[in-house]
């Protein structure tokens, strides 16, 4: 059990390293001869999740976070369960359909369905450098899985001003970079005051000390209009049309957005993320309660 700060930092560094390596593996698998190996990539996402959980549990103990939603204990548990036993089919669909330009017909914004599944979550107290932190606030999600149109405005978390590190994968240059964030405060769909490249958005800009939140309409076309308030920033957000390379963004987000990995898209707690996580949950409900298995048996 890492006790000293040095030990905690070392664990966090290892996690950071693993995340970089894992992202690189996912990226390089896309260009591999013979196509994406589904099983291998799924195993990589497990490492990603484990590393991230450790990292977040180490860093969140240093920063103070205000959960945007209250009373999420039950939802949190359900979210964790859904993340951890996410449908293979769903993740597979994503790798397959999105990598090949075929529109995945299964993505739709469904209304919330009650789970009906027993929440079987393995909470394990593991020693040094282990993961699953059940109290990880980043696993929260809004309680109601609302449909696109009826969500009122909301507030975002304003995290501590302490710099945060995260690792991003530039899909254009295939470079994995660790970015130190500056401040962030804005409403949904807004961009920070210095919109400089992150998440492989721009071909020309380097990774910098701030990051960039993408307008969700660019990558959630099936969800319909997402209500959001745009923050008027001092700089012209669309000054460079290259910034919004939506195809690449949607690919990355599609890759990382299923199976509960939407947190990787943006490590700050934003409602954008929550939308995506929530919608992902709706989808997962649909798939988990689907009865393809039963139908197949009846065919005999």
């Amino acid at each position: 059990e890492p006790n000293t700060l040095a030990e905690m930092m070392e664990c966090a560094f290892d996690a950071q390293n693993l995340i970089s390596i894992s992202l690189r593996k996912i990226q390089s698998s896309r260009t591999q001869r013979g196509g994406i190996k589904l099983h291998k990539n799924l195993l990589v996402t497990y490492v990603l999740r484990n590393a991230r959980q450790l990292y977040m549990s180490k860093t969140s103990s240093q920063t103070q976070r205000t959960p945007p939603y209250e009373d999420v204990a039950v939802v949190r548990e359900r979210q964790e369960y859904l993340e951890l036993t996410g449908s293979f089919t769903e993740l597979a669909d994503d790798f397959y359909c999105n990598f090949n330009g075929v529109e995945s017909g299964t993505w739709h914004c469904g209304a919330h369905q009650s789970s009906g599944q027993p929440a079987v979550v393995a909470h394990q107290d593991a020693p040094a450098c282990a993961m699953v932190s059940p109290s990880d606030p980043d696993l929260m999600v809004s309680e109601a899985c609302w449909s696109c149109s009826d969500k009122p405005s909301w507030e975002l978390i304003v995290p501590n001003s302490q710099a945060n590190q995260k690792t991003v994968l530039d899909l254009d240059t295939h470079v994995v970079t660790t970015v130190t964030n500056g401040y962030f405060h804005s409403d949904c769909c807004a961009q920070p005051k210095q919109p400089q490249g992150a998440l492989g958005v721009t071909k020309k800009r380097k990774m910098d000390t701030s990051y960039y939140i993408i307008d969700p309409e660019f990558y959630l076309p099936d969800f319909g209009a997402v209500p959001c308030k745009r923050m008027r920033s001092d700089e012209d957000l669309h000054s460079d049309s290259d910034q919004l390379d939506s195809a690449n963004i949607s690919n990355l987000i599609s890759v990382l957005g299923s199976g509960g990995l939407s947190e990787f898209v943006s490590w700050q707690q934003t409602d954008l993320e929550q939308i995506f996580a929530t919608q992902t949950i709706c989808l997962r409900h649909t798939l988990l309660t689907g009865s393809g298995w039963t139908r197949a048996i009846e065919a005999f």
Partner: protein
Amino acid sequence: MEEENDTRKVNNSFLRDHNYATEADIISTVEFNSTGELLATGDKGGRVVVFQREQESKTQPQRRGEYNVYSTFQSHEPEFDYLKSLEIEEKINKIKWLPQQNAAYFLLSTNDKTVKLWKISERDKRPEGYNLKDEDGRIRDPATITSLRVPVLQPMDLMVEATARRVFSNAHTYHINSISVNSDLQTFISTDDLRVNLWNLEITDRSFSILISSCFPSTGSPSQLFSFLCDKTRRLLVSINFEEPEDPSTRSFFSEIISSISDVKFSHNGRYLMTRDYLTVKVWDLQMENKPLETYQVHDYLRGKLCSLYENDCIFDKFECVWNGSDSVIMTGSYNNFFRMFDRNTKRDVTLEASRENSKPRAILKPRKVCVGGKRRKDEISVDSLDFSKKILHTTWHPHENIIAVAATNNLYIFQDKVN
């Protein structure tokens, strides 16, 4: 830091020994037929090479039962799926023999997408004396033919031909990882990561398909396993979920990966199931699903190196495991061209090496040992010196004799029990 040194060593050895020029020759599967008379190998280049065991001859007793090349053919070619912009590898993932029903031999071979049924038959006679063709095959002018004759079969040099009799394709979205022939000899299954297809050997344009929705390890139970049994009436039974609770004290970043099962084999007597995960082989009683009967450590010294092995992708290597004919010994491969055998009765195990330098023909294999720490003895090899590019993923055991075939990259080693 120590860990960094290990990483460099592991990576360096991996890069140095990888020979891209012969990648097509890398053996990707080995399989004896049901009598052990034939041994088939598939490689990355899509070829199948079949070896046949020589008849024991009195004149050359030292050549008892050696395997020689019997047939070689190109089973699969690289393809391009234009719709998905995907290249389909020609690598042979699996070969399965059909039980012999007549003079010809049949096997199924599969790459990532397509299963093919091959007929391998011998021809030692050819017809001669055609009426309309002359000896060179040129067509004769019918006006010059004055008499008719019946062609006769004349002996010729033995020729072994392989012909593709069926092609089963377009049924798998993901990569086919295994095929299995039903005992009714009429159907077989092909599986990818999400789907099980049940085929009739006669029908190539359709199959029954079952989508698997949740057979991937969840956090609480990394050793989940579904096994499928086909009974005689061809109803598919999803029978068993084998699951061993995870030991929380060994949890790491890579728990899911190392508990992921790379191979499953039923015992010959049908009572046991053997599973291979990254570090262990487990034998399960089919009646007991919650914990294995026996667990054997293949190379536990790798447990401290998982980070490096993840980095160089070795942690994703899928090792196979195999029973001997009497189910008393199990065998599996490791790195550095080592392979391991475990005697289930005596609980003894041995590590052997498949390499040219260490095994001359008819020499006895010397047991190897990996030194895990402390003083290294003269013949031992330290963990840091292991060559991770030399991995034995594919092994097979003769159905009733002590003959094993071991694939070490692009070399096939066949070892036999020494008699007299």
